[in-house]
């Protein structure tokens, strides 16, 4: 295995043989995955390909049935989710998951207060909200925000964790075109300080942002490479366009 602690070109995140079954369904099936630090990696694939399950395994929301996960040289396979957050793996939810009854600032403060207190906490909250452009709305109730702003708040909470790896699960789902443009800019900004893993259906966003793309289908990685190579890959085209769906419905 390439992932040795301390070597400079070791990937920030790597998985080997990572698998998760739900009953008879292999949602994630023997995934070997390497993500170098500093990259923006998009994970794409048809619905049910196992993308969300895969990032849930990485973030620790669910436990794998087999395989291992190494983050920055540390085997985190058995670490509970909250410890992985402490190591720098932040996950933003596919379905907006904010504290609707709390203010925008309190939402972000909950993310930031593990590492900062007092004046530093206030600064950290301000900074995260400024980066996503929600600073003016700090005192509003999160549940009263427009949907697009809730997505941004979700990202601000991820940022306030000061992550080394930020996992964004379909962040642009439900956003308007104008909001998506702003979002692409934001992710570019974030990527200057953190490695980003992005699950995304919107191909324009993927092509604009990703350094490399990993394509999943039926729980497996079927292709990986630069955006142009992926676009031309026949296996990818088959998975998205040509494959007979009735054959694909059972893993």
């Amino acid at each position, binding site marked *: 295995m390439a992932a040795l602690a301390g070597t400079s070109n070791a990937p920030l995140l790597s998985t080997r043989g990572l698998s998760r079954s739900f009953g008879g369904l292999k949602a994630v099936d023997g995934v070997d995955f390497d993500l170098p630090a500093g990259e923006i990696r998009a994970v794409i694939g048809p619905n049910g390909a196992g993308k969300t399950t895969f990032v849930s395994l990485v973030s620790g929301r669910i436990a794998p049935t087999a395989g291992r996960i190494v983050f920055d040289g540390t085997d985190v396979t058995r670490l*509970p*989710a909250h410890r992985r*957050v402490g190591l720098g793996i932040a996950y933003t939810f596919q379905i907006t*998951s904010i504290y609707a009854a709390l203010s925008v600032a309190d939402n972000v403060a909950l993310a930031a207060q593990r590492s900062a207190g007092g004046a530093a906490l206030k600064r950290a909250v301000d900074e995260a909200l400024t980066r996503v452009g929600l600073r003016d709305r700090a005192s509003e109730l999160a549940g009263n925000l427009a949907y697009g702003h809730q997505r941004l708040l979700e990202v601000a909470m991820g940022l306030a964790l000061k992550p080394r790896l930020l996992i964004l699960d379909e962040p642009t789902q439900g956003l308007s075109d104008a909001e998506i443009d702003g979002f692409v800019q934001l992710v570019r900004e974030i990527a200057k300080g953190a490695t980003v893993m992005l699950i995304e259906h919107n191909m324009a966003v993927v092509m604009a942002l990703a350094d490399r793309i990993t394509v999943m289908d039926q729980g497996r990685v079927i292709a990986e490479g630069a955006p142009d190579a992926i676009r031309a890959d026949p296996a990818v085209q088959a998975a998205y366009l040509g494959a007979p769906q009735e054959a694909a419905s059972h893993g």
Partner: protein
Amino acid sequence: MSERARIAALHLAVIALLFAAQFVLPAYHHGIVSRVMVLAVFAIGYNLVFGYAGMLSLGHAMFFAAGMYGAGLPVYHGGWGIGPAFLFGIACGAVLAAGIGLLALRTSGVAFMIVTMMFGQVAYLLALWFGDWTRGEEGLTIAQDLRVVGPLDLTDPTTRYFVALALFSAALLASLALVRSRFGRTLVAIRENEERTRMLGYDTFRTKLAALTVSGALCAAAGAAYALLFGYMGAGFANVPYSILPLLWVLVGGAATVIGPFVGTLAMFYLTDLSNDLLNRNFPDWDISALGIVGLALVLLILFFPKGVMGTVRARWLPWLP
């Protein structure tokens, strides 16, 4: 006035009001308020788990009873002093809550309600099983001469009132500090969205376990004080009604408000009392339980004021109320 000062002033005013009330209350109400202050500590402990952390326990009578027996039995059978017995009672409640928490917190929602209720029943049945020591439902009376600490005679109504007030004040201020701390904000976060809170890096299991342990200690402090101040302990205090009552008190007063538990306990005590009076006066031969009127009042309250008294006050007028 800053928000911080306003909050401190409000809660200190409640304590000052209760202090002043001692000098003007007629003997009957004086006794009721002493009892209410002790039971309000029970409600404050329950509120921490139910109101702030959002865990509906139906077995909190066991923590009250742990404090009651943990303090009362050593005094009755072992001739312990009041001070050590009180502390031992609190320790019993905290240890029991931590142990129950390790098991019960593997569940949540309805399963948590059922598991805590079952443990509560086990505690009640144990109190009956060890009837040689506890005298079961009939209970034990702690003799007057055992309830003296130094110059303080706990059977004297005035002393009793001030001891109850001291305990209540300590619990109220502790709960205020707790819910405004990082720990308190994390509890609310768990109540609002536990999965999200876990993914923000919090060990939610440990946080909930800590909340339950503190809650158990507070409820046990109330139970211990009840035994030592009023000189009686019985298995009835370990039974289901005493798991439901703190829930009602907290709901009436306002869940997740610091003053709510006291307001709810006071209101329910007088509601029961007045209902009894009313029924006895107007329907002397009907033998109706006052609980019917209490139940009706509760239904109306939940329908029209689901946030309870202080919750409604917060929603309508005082958004800064902790």
